[in-house]
């Protein structure tokens, strides 16, 4: 009898601890920063440049991730083939990689002195110290977040639906576009939001691979770290702005996918 009452209490306690632990640092940022300071922070050197660059680079990265990641995830979700688990593991690998290691790997692969460095340089494309390099770093660290969710979302689509579509002569491409994607929207959107959030917060891979220069490679997290030493309140305020932007993104994606209320089709939030 006692266990019966203790267990739900333990669940509630666990959730409470988790919520307090996760929200306290974020709440502290806002408790330390007044609305006036928040606006002042946008006047800090490089703040607006950093925010603009963050929005630009994360948007491009997300477009790339969706265009390549969606069909790749669909293939993994709907076909069983040799090496499938290996492919999934490899895609998930960047999730457990320290971002700085990702940066080193990118340098060694496609940096100026990397394996493919000379080949890339001969095409006239520059990545290190360039905005394009930031996009590459963001795409590398954020894509697993999207592909994983997309994979789960496609797997959850009733295969009878897909089979019916094919039986009725819709063809693979049409089935993918008309049946699979609409039925996986909630999961795709949640993966999209997670990947975007991860890209917005990216620090280590960007710094190591692309460097830090105002307006070109200094994204918001890099600008915040640059401010910590000289202007702690400024760093706090810029952090608050980043939190607000991320929150706005998360909420709008949730609203658009219609999963803010009611049970989500894919329980991945």
């Amino acid at each position, binding site marked *: 009898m006692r266990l019966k009452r203790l267990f739900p209490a333990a669940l509630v306690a666990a959730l409470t601890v988790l919520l307090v632990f996760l929200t306290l640092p974020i709440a502290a940022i806002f408790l330390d920063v007044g609305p006036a300071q928040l606006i002042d922070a946008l006047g800090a050197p490089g703040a607006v440049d950093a925010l603009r660059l963050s929005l630009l680079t994360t948007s491009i990265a997300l477009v790339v991730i969706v265009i390549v990641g969606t069909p790749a995830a669909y293939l993994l979700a709907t076909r069983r083939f040799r090496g499938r688990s290996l492919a999934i593991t490899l895609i998930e690998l960047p999730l457990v990689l320290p971002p700085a290691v990702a940066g*080193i790997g990118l340098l060694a692969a496609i*940096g100026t002195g990397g394996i493919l460095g000379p080949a890339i340089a001969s095409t006239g494309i520059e990545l290190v110290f360039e905005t394009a390099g930031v996009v590459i770093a963001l795409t590398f660290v954020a894509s697993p977040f999207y592909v994983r969710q997309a994979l789960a979302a496609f797997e959850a689509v009733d295969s009878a639906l897909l089979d019916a579509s094919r039986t009725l002569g819709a063809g693979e491409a049409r089935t993918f576009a008309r049946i699979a994607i609409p039925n996986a929207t909630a999961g795709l959107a949640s993966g999209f939001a997670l990947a975007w959030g991860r890209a917005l917060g990216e620090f280590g891979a960007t*710094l190591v691979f692309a460097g830090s220069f105002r307006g070109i490679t200094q994204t918001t997290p890099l600008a915040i770290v640059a401010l910590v030493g000289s202007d702690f309140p400024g760093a706090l305020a810029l952090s608050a702005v980043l939190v607000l932007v991320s929150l706005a993104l998360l909420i709008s994606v949730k609203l658009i996918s219609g999963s803010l209320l009611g049970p989500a089709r894919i329980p991945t939030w």
Partner: protein
Amino acid sequence: MNRGWLTVLIAVSVTGCGGRASTGADSAPARSELKVSAAASLTDAFTAYGEQFDPAEAAFSFGASDELAAQIRAGALPDVYAAANTTLPDELAEEGLLGEPTVFATNALVIAVPEGSELESVEDLEQPGLAIVIGSETVPVGVYTRLALERLPDEGETILANVRSEEPDVKGVLGKLTQGAADAGFVYDSDVIATRGQLRAIELPSKLQPDVAYGIAVVEGTEFPEQGQEFIDGLLEGPGAEALAEAGFGPPPSE
């Protein structure tokens, strides 16, 4: 190539979360741990000194001097703080966060280029299209770099136009150079020595050379003020001073 990797790895671990090195002598479990927050450029010298430091187990957190100072201002409590300048320790002491700072070493700002580079002088850095990496304006090495460049006839504008990245600490600058991503960078002489031949130092003309001095102090409120002071004393005379000299640092200016 392997050394290059190692340097980048070290650079990254330092930038990321502050490298933590402790001494190997663990025979006496009751030894107290002396936490030392130190400028990234002191990594090699302090790690070597820490192994010989007897009064306590020295545990280091290496990073950008300004970020380490910000941590102390935000309430972090290391036992000793060492910066790549004297202004940060002086400021913290005035705020009542540090004891009386001591100047314990000097260094020289140099231009570092990859071995085999054809660059030979400051003027060579003015060629358009070069990729130059410097420290950000909040970290001491970045401040010294700007001080030096401002003394050029054009106040360094031509060279600053070639700057492609402003790194949060000196190890970040070194990483970009050893990896071959940048053509030249401004670092300390001791940093170039630590790369053991991968990078070559180009001395600055004396009229450009800023005074690079390192300040250290015991943090107010530490549990181990005596061991902290012993750590500082050893840097002025004894194993610490030797480790600094070996790493390429100069002695503190005589009064």
